[in-house]
């Protein structure tokens, strides 16, 4: 725990989320959410379904446009329609529940395409980098396979490799294991744990409580569009202040 605290105290703040509000019609999904993210930190968002966790992640890279509030990445505001939105999105990787792989491209081409089209890399350089990323997630032998030929776990590891290839400052994981069975979930969580240990800054929306308790620097419990409680895994497990979060965790342990 000491090392975790150390990291949190000393890391510079690279992402700042300020008072984000978002309505869908009459329903206010986010009612003013704020937090800071330090370099190398892993924050895990938990909470009942429909409390705005995924919307919050999508607001960070402006895939969903917040009604009000600001997102800052390294002192630069992330604004939809802003002149540098595409550059900023490169620095904010995203991994989706349904993988969202490019179905017409092989595994290696899925990783390459943004390197070539967005970063303007040569095909040879992009290939080299893509193969490195595939190796990182254990998919080198699947480089020439198409998404339809991959298992769910392999597909999700590929989508992590695709995000990593852009050398992002932070990666957003939107329920990355929710469409996987337990065995495939494990192989994806393994990769995510390795990334966290290697110092990648990560924001993770998940229902995997084991992952949250063992990997997170901070767990944020969201309900009804706000962050209700937040703290380190050890605080949440012991301190009386986290009654609501523990009650929520309890519903999982009953499974």
């Amino acid at each position, binding site marked *: 725990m000491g090392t975790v605290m150390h990291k949190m105290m000393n890391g510079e703040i690279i992402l700042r989320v300020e008072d984000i509000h978002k309505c869908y019609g009459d329903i206010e999904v986010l009612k003013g959410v704020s937090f800071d993210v330090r370099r190398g930190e892993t924050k895990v968002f938990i909470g009942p379904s429909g409390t705005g966790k995924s919307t919050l992640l999508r607001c960070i890279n402006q895939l969903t446009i917040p009604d009000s509030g600001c997102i800052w990445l390294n002192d630069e505001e992330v604004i939809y329609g802003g002149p540098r939105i*595409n550059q900023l999105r490169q620095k904010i990787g*995203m991994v989706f529940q349904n993988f969202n792989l490019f179905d*017409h491209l092989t595994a290696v081409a899925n990783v390459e395409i*943004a390197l070539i089209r*967005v970063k303007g890399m040569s095909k040879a350089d992009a290939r080299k980098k893509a193969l490195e990323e595939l190796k990182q997630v254990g998919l080198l032998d699947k480089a020439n396979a198409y998404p339809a030929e991959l298992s769910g776990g392999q597909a999700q590891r590929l989508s992590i490799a*695709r995000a990593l290839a*852009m050398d992002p400052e932070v990666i957003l994981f939107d329920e990355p294991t929710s469409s996987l069975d337990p065995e495939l979930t494990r192989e994806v969580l393994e990769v995510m744990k390795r990334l966290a240990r290697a110092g990648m800054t990560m924001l993770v929306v998940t229902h995997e409580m084991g992952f949250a308790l063992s990997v997170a620097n901070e767990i944020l419990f969201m309900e009804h569009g706000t962050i209700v409680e937040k703290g380190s895994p050890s605080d949440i497990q012991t301190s009386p202040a986290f009654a609501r979060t523990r009650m929520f965790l309890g519903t999982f342990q009953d499974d």
Partner: protein
Amino acid sequence: MIDLQFDFEILLPALYKGALVTFALILVSAPFGFLNGIGIALGRTYGNRLVSRLCQGYVLFFKGCPLLLLLFIIYFGLPSLGITFTAFTSAVIGFILCNGAYNSEYIRGGIQSVSSGQMTAALSLGMSRVQAIRSIILPQALRKSLPGLSNEFIYLIKYSSLAYMITVIEITGAGNIFAAKYFAFFEVFILIGIFYLGLVTVAGRIIAVIEKKIAIPGFGGV
């Protein structure tokens, strides 16, 4: 009754010239009809309200207008507005307009069949919408619309014969002139029928080869 030997000796050169015109009509119209279809489909799917409505209106109009009438309007009607095209150009314009309207519907279907999550993923990697459409959406949409597009191409081959109605002497026209002169309707039109059949068969083969060449696991078909 009929001296076939004699007929064919002078018939074939006459038809050959007509066939060249038919080829020219198809080879000019098909690529532009294809591009027109892509443009209309993109405008309708990704354009703002106005562009989308305009594209929708375009498709409605050209699907609803009989092609022959369209050719008449372009070749015989437009000159009264001071717009004059040669017969060949008029035919090609008509084919491109009509072919594009139908193509756009197949391509639009293809675009809609690509999961929206792929666009989201492309944007999250820092691609612009245009880049995402070009590198991610269209390559898949076109593959998925190929069977429909190939159908439309086959239609184009056959309705190119309507050009004759606005004085373009393509193969059907050449045949008709010859047949009337020598009173050899049966032989001439059977021969032309075989020509179209051959053309359609070859086109079908070429499309099958293309389809196989660009096939991707998980895309249905092959």
